[in-house]
């Protein structure tokens, strides 16, 4: 995603109903947000419905946008909230709801192959990140994968920037321990 200054400019222009700025924002943020939504809902159709709702709602509330607050963080937070709502509304899950996604589809197979690229350490790292405590993992992924700064992550996770720092430091400590163990196992 593009940098914060550009986002601030877009926020200002979208507040004045500038559809061109809205279009630029859409084109810049759609794919990363799609990927982010897929972390939660695991279904491309559901994810794209969520994004449609998020952008439509953003346009509805455009006159209330605050250019001093991160528009990027707002988008991530809206996607997260809606995704969680979708997951909640699906509960209790019926067996036939779950079944299809448990089957490895072609897409998932492709994704698996893709994830399998990179060196051995990188593959290990993916596993280690997935095994982090949930809040640490969320903060770490928002930082490394989504490129959000600490204030934006604090906004998405609804906690203090100081706490975000603690989560990421905790995640790094966890990953470093795993790395040390991995290294000594290989030397043996």
């Amino acid at each position: 995603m593009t940098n914060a200054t550009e986002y601030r400019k877009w926020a200002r222009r979208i507040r004045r109903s500038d559809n061109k700025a809205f279009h630029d924002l859409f084109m810049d943020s759609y794919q990363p947000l799609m990927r982010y939504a897929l972390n939660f809902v695991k279904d491309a159709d559901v994810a794209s419905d969520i994004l449609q709702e998020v952008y439509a709602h953003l346009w509805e509330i455009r006159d209330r946008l605050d250019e001093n607050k991160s528009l990027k963080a707002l988008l991530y937070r809206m996607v997260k909230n809606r995704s969680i709502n979708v997951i909640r509304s699906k509960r209790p899950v019926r067996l036939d709801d779950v079944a299809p996604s448990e089957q490895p589809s072609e897409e998932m197979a492709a994704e698996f192959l893709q994830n399998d690229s990179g060196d051995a350490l990188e593959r290990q790292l993916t596993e280690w990140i997935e095994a982090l405590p949930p809040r640490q993992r969320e903060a770490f992924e928002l930082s490394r994968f989504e490129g959000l700064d600490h204030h934006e992550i604090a906004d998405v996770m609804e906690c203090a920037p100081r706490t975000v720092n603690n989560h990421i430091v905790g995640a790094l400590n966890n990953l470093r321990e795993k790395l040390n163990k991995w290294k000594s196992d290989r030397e043996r």
Partner: protein
Amino acid sequence: MRDSMDKKKPDKQILNQFPGEQQEDLHLIWDKARRRKPEPGNLSAKEMQAAWEKLQKRIGPTRPTLHIHPARRRSSSARTYAFISALAALFLGGFLLWYLFIPVSIEAPRGSYTTFQWNDGVRVELNSGSTISWNRSFTNGHRNIRLHGEAYFDVPTSEKPFIVETQTAMVEVLGTRFNVRSWADDPTGRTTLTLVEGQVRLASLLEPEASVLIPPGHISEIDYLNSVPHDPRPIDTNQALAWRNHGFYFSAIPMSEVAAELERRYDSEIIIGNEQLGARELTIYLPRPGDLETIIETICFVTDCRYEEQNGQLHLF
């Protein structure tokens, strides 16, 4: 898409918090993790365009399109007639617009309270310095209220929803008794909801999908920082709604906010001498408070401060 990640040096500063001998490993993890970022879905330009067009259809045209008819020649009497009818239409339209879109409001001036009841049985009590407003519409405009300040609502059970909007929050109910508090001079934009009976849904204005259901005898809050409402917590509603009987209840409230409430209720001016005193939190329940001076005396007794009156203002220090 331009990637600005690597230009964002400040992020890497987090690694400086670690001891030197760990730096090498941590930089390795930091950079490798970046490369483990999942691919961004790889949607084609065509798919993106389709998603954009779907969105555009959904939000509708930004500006209404103007239909311009070619000018036709008309006789002068027809023109006069057209002019008069246009004027009448303008006048009537203007009145209709005014009637429908200029909101009606009810206010409880500082130092007083106001109670109001609509035909459908909805009753509202306004605390000092509060205003409610709504748009007249053909059917039930007053069931969509905007509130500045604090008010208690008694809404008889009905199929039609009743909505209260504040600076940060939206409360939707179907027949309950509840209290909403949201003062414009609160820098955090806080809205506090206290539910006495029934059930209501509290939602943020910015993110209506993040809402909570509040059970009776519970309180919840929204402000600019926390757009997701706090988890409801139990409260003694008699205390929380002490203002309805002209009493006070403050639970760990900073003196500056206490003073603002007293100013509104007694239409007076209170000046707090120093910041520490303004920030000091006060917990006090005064069901029958009496006059302002008695309250100030009580507050000064519990917070160990002094007061004096100067030119009609109360100074606390």
